[in-house]
């Protein structure tokens, strides 16, 4: 599904991602862990096309996407969330989600001027898609609430729904459980599993080890931009390089 070959990203003299090769299978939950500053978010930015790699290739279902613009990659089926959620706080949850399906529609200025039937149909479709995504993340009852008034965990779910509304094949979740209590983390883990069960390939960055160990089919560990290990949760737990990296760096990453 996702194949990364010798991927490198330099920021000036700093290699944020260095020579990383990895393969993620379809319909699996893949986790990326590593200390702060290890290059995890940069890795996501490269895959989603937000940043161009310095070298290396990214293949999605055999398609080379490493030189494509971010919006093109999104159209090919890569959805994502960010480490910090940027929703429009003064609007309702549903209003935030409607634009999620925009990339599958074609209406332009002319359609707006004449209020074409295509525009009306596409707006209906976007609204339906938004409701469907909201229902999937379990927040159908919040559709008319203002984002300002919902909890942190609910915002995380709305951000998931926004990514899902783009109809992705692959979703990249950057620290979905950050700032969320243990009970809610459980719920988010169930939701992530539900995504995979519905045929999505999931990639997530997370610091909460309990969550990762119970959830992931495969884990890749980054440290200083390099891949230092990959394998099943059991393999990772027993890997000396990983233990070394975690004990040698900030310990709250391993908490």
């Amino acid at each position: 599904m996702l194949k990364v070959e010798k991927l490198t990203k330099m920021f000036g003299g700093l290699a944020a991602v260095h020579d990383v090769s990895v393969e993620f299978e379809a319909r699996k939950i893949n986790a990326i862990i590593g200390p702060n500053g290890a290059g995890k978010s940069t890795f996501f930015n490269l895959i989603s096309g937000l940043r161009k790699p310095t070298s290396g290739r990214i293949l999605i279902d055999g398609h080379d996407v490493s030189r494509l613009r971010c919006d093109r990659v999104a159209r090919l089926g890569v959805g994502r969330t960010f480490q910090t959620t940027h929703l429009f706080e003064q609007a309702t949850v549903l209003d935030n989600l409607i634009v999620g399906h925009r990339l599958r529609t074609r209406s332009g200025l002319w359609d707006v001027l004449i209020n074409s039937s295509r525009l009306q149909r596409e707006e209906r479709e976007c609204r339906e898609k938004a409701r469907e995504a909201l229902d999937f993340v379990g927040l159908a009852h919040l559709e008319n609430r203002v984002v300002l008034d919902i909890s942190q965990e609910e915002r995380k779910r709305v951000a998931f729904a926004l990514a899902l509304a783009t109809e992705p094949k692959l979703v990249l979740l950057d620290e979905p459980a950050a700032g969320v209590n243990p009970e809610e983390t459980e719920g988010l883990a169930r939701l992530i599993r539900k995504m995979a069960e519905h045929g999505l390939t999931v990639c997530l960055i997370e610091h909460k080890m309990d969550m990762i160990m119970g959830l992931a089919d495969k884990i890749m560990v980054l440290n200083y931009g390099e891949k230092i290990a990959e394998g099943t949760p059991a393999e990772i737990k027993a890997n000396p390089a990983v233990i070394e990296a975690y004990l040698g760096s900030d310990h709250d990453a391993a908490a």
Partner: protein
Amino acid sequence: MRRFASLFTHPAARWVLLALALGFPFVASSEYQVYVMATAFIWAIAVYGLNIITGYCGQLNLAHGGFFAVGAYALAILTSDHGWNFWPAFLAAGLVSAALGAAVGVVSLRLKEHYFAIFTLCVGFIIYLLIDKWEALTHGAIGIRGIAAPDGFGLVDFSQTRPFYYLALGFLVLAIWFAGRLASSLLGRTFMAIRNGDALAQSLGIDLMRNKVLAFVLSTTYAGVAGALYASMIRFIGPEEANPNHTFDMITYLLIGGFGTLFGPLAGTVGVVWITQSLQFLEDYRMVIFGPLIVVLVIFMPRGVVGTFLGWKLRKDAEAARADARPGVDGMSGTEVKPHA
């Protein structure tokens, strides 16, 4: 309180507003008041344009006054120096501002945030300098006289204040109508997604450049049309029309009315124009009152008069809907919210 507030958002409120505007010349105490109101309407059209690029799309455009002047000069030059009839010249003025907007947009929108703002500030200043110095085209500091008033239809003579007032009102209604349609459409939502953040918008598959340029061209077209109307109302223009201060006036109107709201540009422009008028007797000291007034407004209503009101109402409505909702089934999906009666 919420009930009372609903009166303002009721669909009929628009018709009441229109009726008030239509009746204004009959209740105005002097022709001068009608003239001031017509001017306010023209500025409001330009502010609606600024609202598209800055309010909805989130790109602080500081060249807006420049495009207003481009529209004004295009109409002036074509009618006064080249003897064009008003309406073709008016159309051309809109097209010139759109084309120039496209050219400037393609270059400037590669820059983000304050870099874009600074770049457009320079563009606005360059437009001002060109108008002031390019005498062969613009007559420089002398300005242009003998600009055509809009050609009337039959008995209507738009060189008179009242008929012109209705013409300006007509264009303002058109401007608001399109802005409203845009804001509620998928295209408007696309612009607002960009305002929320480039990275998120792109990751939702939105082509940034294309949409930003489109929003920019729409805004410069609004500015150009407003400028052309302005030139045909005062019939004499000079380089002062391109003074970058006008851009900041428009930003003030928008700030006070409310960025990214449908009626903010109207409320802000008409409100501020009348406040400045009524403080006229203080002459230069009026800023002593007006300045603090703006500061207070910005502190207590950071989203403008309209924006703050709508935000408050949206939350109140959501609260009321929640209070009315039946107890949830299991808190997860499938819980229904009864719409508020």
